[in-house]
């Protein structure tokens, strides 16, 4: 299974809604349609994706304020992805017991914990990526991939 974090999931959702929106959101401002297509290629099938409920909450809190036509499209796309992906609950107590909790907080600690049993972690959070690599977790890091193109 492939685990995906909040910012990467936001890139996926915005790409599905309209890639032109990347430039209007701070968290997706460096990405373009090509990055989105590459992300889709890495994912392959949405059935491969596993998402923590904490991540869905973060994503919906950030994106549920879409206005106009985009609101309907957002609701359609997030509903479709939730239906086609798996969800894994890990209790918060487990997160507080992780040594990373002090530095990266509850959600990212739970992501790291779950990623240990996944074949890949997809993230666009450089700090989380640093931690994952230090824990021998295989990472597709969207920020790294993008910056390699810019260098």
């Amino acid at each position, binding site marked *: 299974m492939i685990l995906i974090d909040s910012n990467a999931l936001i890139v996926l959702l915005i790409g599905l809604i309209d890639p032109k929106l990347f*430039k209007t959101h*701070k*968290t997706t*401002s*460096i990405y373009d349609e090509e990055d989105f297509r590459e992300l889709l290629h890495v994912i392959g099938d949405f059935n491969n994706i596993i998402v923590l409920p904490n991540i869905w909450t973060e994503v919906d809190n950030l994106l549920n304020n879409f206005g106009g036509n985009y609101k309907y499209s957002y609701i359609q796309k997030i509903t479709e992805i939730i239906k086609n992906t798996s969800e894994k609950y890990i209790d918060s107590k487990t997160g507080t017991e992780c*040594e*990373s*909790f*002090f*530095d990266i*907080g509850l959600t990212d600690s739970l992501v790291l914990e779950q990623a240990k049993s996944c074949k890949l972690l997809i993230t666009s959070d*450089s*700090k989380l990526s*640093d931690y994952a690599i*230090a824990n021998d977790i295989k990472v597709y890091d969207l*920020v*790294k991939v*993008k*910056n390699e193109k*810019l*260098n």
Partner: protein
Amino acid sequence: MKLKDILAIAKNELSDLSTIENPDFRLEQAIFKQDEKIWEVVVSYLVENTNKPSKPFAALSPEFPFVRMYKKLEINEKNEVVSFLMYDKA
């Protein structure tokens, strides 16, 4: 201005802030503020971790040799860095 140029300007501005061989400078965000004609940019880079956890916290936090820093810059249309700010990723 292209993202490639923004990254180059930011790297040039921040290169003295890290002493490690590969600071892994990254462009994290870049928004053009139309009203002010300014690019608001967030970059990250690695520095040596000189502030390792003290004993009471040692069991709570891993001791990595490097730590990632985030900074916010504002760049005007003349490619000048006009502000350099702390940035809290959270």
